[in-house]
């Protein structure tokens, strides 16, 4: 039997690595705020899962999935500023989620609680994170080139729109997973901070993506470990650990 503290560190570490790696692409695509606001959408799904008694991961992913399709459609179909729409719909979803979530679980839903994880969470998390990293690596060429010039990328026969949609789904997936670690309010930090710190210290893309994954893992493991030692709430501690890594990275800025 795995010790609960170790299980927390392993699951948290995997989620951190996945969030850091996916976050690296989100930062390049200027999706930082979308990722942050998107995490709030998970709350109503989480609340429904708690009320109806099924795994919160599926509830969170279901509402995130709907939100992602919404964002994707809005980006393609309207000239409205998606930032504004995201701001309106996602805070509304958060408010709805807060009202729906049973009082005793509210704090956990908002700020996460990795101490509740079980072995079955490991069976979901580990393969999902590994598969996700493999998919993102496979579509990285289209993601990166598509960020620089969509038309150039399309002219090479690469399916930019399809890849963008797939990427949004993966963002929803990692956010749904990460809610266990940092909760719906702070999940944005786990995708934004490691990647931003990695950007400070990298000239090449390969180093940037790798550093983001490593920083994500360190952020998550470091925060959870400190929280375990001093009996603190792990979610905010993880975000603080990320902030410290970011500050250190500033001294090595390229």
């Amino acid at each position: 039997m795995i010790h609960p503290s170790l299980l927390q560190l392993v699951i948290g570490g995997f989620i951190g690595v996945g969030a850091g790696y996916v976050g690296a692409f989100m930062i390049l695509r200027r999706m930082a705020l979308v990722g942050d606001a998107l995490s709030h959408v998970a709350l109503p799904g989480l609340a429904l899962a708690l009320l109806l008694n099924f795994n919160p991961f599926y509830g969170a992913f279901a509402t995130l999935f709907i939100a992602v399709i919404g964002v994707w459609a809005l980006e393609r179909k309207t000239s409205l500023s998606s930032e504004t729409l995201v701001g309106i719909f996602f805070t509304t979803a958060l408010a709805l989620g807060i009202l729906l979530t049973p009082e005793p679980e509210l704090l956990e839903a908002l700020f996460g609680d990795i101490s509740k994880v079980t072995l079955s969470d490991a069976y979901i998390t580990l393969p999902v994170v590994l598969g996700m990293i493999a998919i993102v690596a496979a579509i990285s060429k289209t993601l990166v080139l598509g960020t620089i010039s969509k038309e150039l990328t399309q002219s090479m026969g690469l399916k930019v729109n399809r890849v963008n949609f797939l990427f949004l789904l993966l963002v929803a997936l990692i956010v749904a997973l990460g809610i266990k670690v940092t909760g719906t309010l702070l999940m944005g930090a786990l995708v934004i901070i490691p990647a931003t710190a990695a950007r400070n210290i990298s000239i090449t893309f390969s180093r940037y993506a790798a550093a983001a994954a490593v920083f994500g893992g360190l952020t998550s493991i470091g925060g959870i470990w400190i929280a375990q030692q001093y009996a603190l709430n792990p979610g905010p501690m993880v975000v603080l650990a990320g902030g410290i890594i970011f500050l250190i990275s500033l001294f090595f800025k390229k």
Partner: protein
Amino acid sequence: MWYTGAMSEQEPILSVNQLSVAFEAHQVLKDVSFEVQPGDVLAIVGPNGAGKSVLFRSLLNLIPFAGVISWAPDARVSYIPQRFSIDQDFPLTVREFFHFKSKNKQDILAALHSVGITNEHHIQHHILNQRVGWLSGGQLQRILIAWSIIDKPDVILLDEPTAGIDVGGEETIYNLIKKLHDERKLTIIMISHDLDIVYRYATNVLCLNKEMVCYGVPVEALDAEALKKMYGEASVYSHPHKHHHSEP
């Protein structure tokens, strides 16, 4: 002047017939027809909003259109967009940028040589390991041209190749394009706003203003009538057309 008359017996590398493009109710291109022979340099001119970039997107099959666009079956087409925005701190080196197309070191070096970047030390230390975002406008354009020829295309589409480049740099880029055309027997289709460049470098010109205003050899096609249809009455008297008798 590059004489292409002898080639007219050949199959065209591109033929466009009755091309029309509309976005919702808004007609952007109407009944455009022309042919491009292998080795031609076709310049596309016209005012802002004339549909030049839309024509390119149709040629690349990126947008829906009416009419027929047919490329020669074995034609390999490369495209250099006008808008290529990359932040200074975008973590991507020139080497990694090339690797999106080819990981073969010899191919990369050959392409760089073709655009006049030949110094081995310079290539290793100041080009390949540089961030793409750190390149100057002129350098970036050279790298883009090198990037576009790495997989040995037959045709290159260039959208305003010298936008955002200073006057001296413009000259260099056009000479470079001419050199590639001569050395590699490339077919060039380029959008340009500079009529002076069109007279000097193009074998054919296509004037657009939503519909086709003129098409042919520049000295014949770009007459007062065509200019008036594109740029309005005043242009006929004031457009900066210089003759270059110094050309060899």
